[in-house]
């Protein structure tokens, strides 16, 4: 039997962690774009658009991410596409992220006083002009801390993609465990690497919240 040093284990895990980071970044950016569209629908004037966005959010927040991954993995295959795990993982995580970001941002948009809508409306601005020039610049300030905070959930969410066979940090943990029979050490390292990825994000979210709040009070 081959002997594995601690460095062998750690090196392999770190190499796999690159895919965790890449998938997190891609889903977060993709989720941000889709989430922005859902936000516009969610705050639109047309009632049917709002309902549609609400249904989307309810659906993706009310079902397990794991099930969404399974459905993306097996569901896309029904269209005759051979779905690689990374594609299913990226699609499911993007849609899932979008539903949460849209809801977070909606809270921020709704926190803007109603008078701002009325004032800009009285200046004959259309919906998109109001959003672009009046609402979003103000909502953005309050949106930053919870958005950064949610990125932690995305990083942790990527661990589920190991179950449909995408080789990232968690999957590497399982593979290395099967080779070394050292689950305690390996999963300990895996947890520490996730912690090293997530903790700075959590911390900066807290710091941003404090900073932006102080600025808010000085208005």
């Amino acid at each position, binding site marked *: 039997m081959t002997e594995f040093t601690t460095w062998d284990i750690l090196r392999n895990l770190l190499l796999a962690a690159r895919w965790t980071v890449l998938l997190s970044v891609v889903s977060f950016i993709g989720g941000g774009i889709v989430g922005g569209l859902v936000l516009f629908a969610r705050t639109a004037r047309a009632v049917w658009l709002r309902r549609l966005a609400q249904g989307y959010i309810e659906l993706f927040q*009310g079902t*397990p991410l794991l*099930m969404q991954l399974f459905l993306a993995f*097996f569901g896309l295959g029904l269209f005759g596409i051979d779905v690689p795990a990374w594609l299913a993982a990226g699609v499911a995580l993007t849609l899932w992220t979008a539903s949460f970001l849209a809801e977070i941002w909606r809270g921020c948009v709704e926190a803007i006083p109603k008078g701002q809508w009325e004032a800009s409306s009285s200046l004959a601005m259309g919906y998109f002009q109001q959003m672009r020039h009046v609402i979003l610049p103000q909502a953005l300030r309050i949106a930053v801390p919870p958005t950064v905070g949610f990125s932690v959930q995305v990083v942790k969410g990527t661990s589920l993609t190991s179950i449909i066979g995408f080789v990232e940090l968690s999957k590497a943990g399982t593979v290395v465990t099967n080779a070394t029979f050292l689950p*305690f050490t390996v999963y300990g390292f*895996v*947890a520490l690497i*996730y*912690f090293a990825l997530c903790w700075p994000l959590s911390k900066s979210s807290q710091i941003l919240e404090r900073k932006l709040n102080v600025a808010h009070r000085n208005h």
Partner: protein
Amino acid sequence: MTYQFDFGWMAEYWPVLLSGIRVTLELIAIGGVLGVALGIGCAWARALGPRWLRPVVSTYVELIRNTPFLIQLFFLFFGLPSLGINLSEFTAANLAMVINLGAYSCEIVRAGIQATPAGQYEAGASLAMIRFQVFRHVVLIPALQRIWPALSSQIVIVMLGSAVVSQIAAEDLTFAANFIQSRTFRAFEAYFVSTAIYLAMAILLRQMLRGVGYVLFPKKAVR
């Protein structure tokens, strides 16, 4: 798309789904109650407890909140046996859920506790209440009332997250779906049905927790 949907298996495998639903419900019932209890204990320790205990609890909370549930589960189920602690699938799954929910609810409850005005403590003390009585009657109950909606959504999130416990072969709803798809090769239909069941369970659980909120906190909190 030439795929023919076939839900014919449902008649035969319905009992499998039902037993999966039962396990998922058991997991969240036990995990929810114990997790919130742990969270309240930790929130007390972190906000008002002895000084030496605070960093211990903070470390626990930060560690759990910044690592994936899947890894916590694997660590408990695969890692602990090398220390001589063997847990059954169900126990490991439930323990992981309690530990996970404990950390999140600690943060939520703590936010509620810290929103208590200082005058409330003084008012409690002036009524000759001891510290524990002040915490229980003056601080905790209004705090729980304030944060009940946030706590409810966290419980729902943990319930949905419990889909992962199928990975250590705890026989929950996802395990049932995996079982059915491996028998019938109807992967999409099996996951579609179980996803719908999860959605229904999430909606019902949310409504139930709202009802519990009305029962637990009938009076409006004095802020």
